[in-house]
């Protein structure tokens, strides 16, 4: 998505652009696939940064302007209501901040003033403020109640932290705004709607692309990138190259080995698995009312590399049906997705038969553990209503996206200015440090602007 957005910007201003996509389907980390006629989204739980039309000064309207894509083309329908569920507390939130504030006030007596001051600090933070600063440190000095701190960290970490346990405060600020201040939305037809809008626009401005066209290496001459060699051996020259493959992955394309320390130390160590259950009934009829539920089974939030195949202690439940779609429209079938942290090492070590067997085994356990956080939902009813299921693991992520370590949130260390140390080669997307779907596209736009359009013609 970052690549498509960058391509649109460049083609809009008459640059000769070619997008090379290794996969047969566009989208990268936010793509889709089909099994037996059903279409599944890969990454999308929710598009974050979703503000109502007319709400300016935030990333989404700014992005749409830069791409000159009308807002309607993305078909963003707001969430109904989401929740952070921990033992003993349950914070609901919607796209209006007021509900979260009320919930904190009601469930954490005496904390509301501190909570408001903390929010003010976030809203007043200047761009890039808090880089290199621990969010846990700032939370600890801002909010006296440890449970409230852990609960607020849960959605923030799950929707974008590539690091375990803690997150850089500058990223916390970005994610807080995208999740709590702005909010969640989803196109009725899923991520395909957004990808199609990008592709249509890219074609309209004259961009070209090649699918199933992997890059074997980036050609670097005396520290200056000058082209690419494709997997079929063809060489293409370029004045500038924007890579959305990831930071360590791009290093490898420039000639580093996978075992090089510079590659290894920046591979993201957080990998995820997800179960997708297709239900014969609308989830609401089965008692599932929430859009997204972020859960954790103890007062201390666990977000770290998994010690076993799956870490069942925390996770995210997503119900794509539970968005406020226009009257009279809905998804044909019910969908329930459960995401947890998973071990890349374990899942990639399995032989194929053992892998299939492990998926089978963990599928039920993941769904069961998640259902503990959906009170009033009968697990037996969910089981009997499940008509189809699929699951992705870190192995799937590595296979289809090429992300080392199966790390969907990318490298531990980001490159906020997009530079790589190689002249004329820039990073966009997840490893530039902007997160989520809007963030990925925004990243493509800013890198294209800064390093190509503003750099002038060659």
């Amino acid at each position, binding site marked *: 998505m970052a690549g498509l957005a960058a391509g649109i910007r460049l083609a809009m*201003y008459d640059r000769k652009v070619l997008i090379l996509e290794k996969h047969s389907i566009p989208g990268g980390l936010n793509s889709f696939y089909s099994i037996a006629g059903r279409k599944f989204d890969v990454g999308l739980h929710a598009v974050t940064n979703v503000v109502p039309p*007319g709400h*300016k000064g935030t990333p989404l309207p*700014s992005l749409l*302007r*830069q791409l*000159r894509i009308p807002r309607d083309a993305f078909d963003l329908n707001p969430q109904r209501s989401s929740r952070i569920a921990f033992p003993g507390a349950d914070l609901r939130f919607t796209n209006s901040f007021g509900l979260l504030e009320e919930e904190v006030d009601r469930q954490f007596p005496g904390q509301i003033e501190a909570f408001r001051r903390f929010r003010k600090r976030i809203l007043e933070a200047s761009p890039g403020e808090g880089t290199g600063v621990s969010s846990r440190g700032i939370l600890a000095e801002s909010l006296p109640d440890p449970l409230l701190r852990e609960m607020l960290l849960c959605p923030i970490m799950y929707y974008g932290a590539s690091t375990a346990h803690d997150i850089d405060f500058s990223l916390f600020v970005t994610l807080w705004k995208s999740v709590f201040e702005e909010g969640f939305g989803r196109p009725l037809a899923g991520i395909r709607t957004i990808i199609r809008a990008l592709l249509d626009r890219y074609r309209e401005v004259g961009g070209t692309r090649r699918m199933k066209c992997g890059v074997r290496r980036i050609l670097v001459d005396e520290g200056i990138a000058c082209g690419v060699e494709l997997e079929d051996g063809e060489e293409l020259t370029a004045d500038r190259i924007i890579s959305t493959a990831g930071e360590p992955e791009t290093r490898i394309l420039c000639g580093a080995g996978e075992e090089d320390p510079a590659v290894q130390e920046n591979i993201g160590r957080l990998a995820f698995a997800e179960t997708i259950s297709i239900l014969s009934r609308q989830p609401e009829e089965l008692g599932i009312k929430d859009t997204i539920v972020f859960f954790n089974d103890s007062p201390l939030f666990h977000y770290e590399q998994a010690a076993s195949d799956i870490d069942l202690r925390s996770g995210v439940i997503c119900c794509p049906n539970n968005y406020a779609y226009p009257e009279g429209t809905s998804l044909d079938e019910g969908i329930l997705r459960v995401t947890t942290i998973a071990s890349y090492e374990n899942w990639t070590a399995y032989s194929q038969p053992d892998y299939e067997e492990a998926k089978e085994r963990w599928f039920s356990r993941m769904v069961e553990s998640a259902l503990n956080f959906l009170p009033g939902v009968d697990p037996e009813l969910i089981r009997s209503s499940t008509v189809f299921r699929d699951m992705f693991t870190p192995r799937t992520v590595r296979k289809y996206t090429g992300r080392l370590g199966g790390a969907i949130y990318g490298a531990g260390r980001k490159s906020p200015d997009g530079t790589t140390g190689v002249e004329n080669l820039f990073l966009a997307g997840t490893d530039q440090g902007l997160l989520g779907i809007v963030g990925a596209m925004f990243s493509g*736009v800013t890198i294209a602007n800064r390093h190509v*359009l503003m750099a002038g013609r060659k």
Partner: protein
Amino acid sequence: MTKEECKQVVLDIIAEIAPDEDLSNISPDVRLRDQLDLDSMDFLDIVMELRKQYGIEVPEEDYPQLASLDSCAEYLTPKFKEVSA
């Protein structure tokens, strides 16, 4: 091109890049940023459109010259004359 025409060119470009802005009551002597919701990326696009549509180059150090319609006209009118000459 007159200064008035030059202002219209800039307004037309803004209408294109920010179709959701109301441009009917713009004061020419007040900074555009203070009247409209335009960010630095939108100003970049004004520059990019000037180049694309009219072949006018605005170097980055001159971006502040585009602050208001009056200053745009002041700065751009001679440039329009240059390219049409």
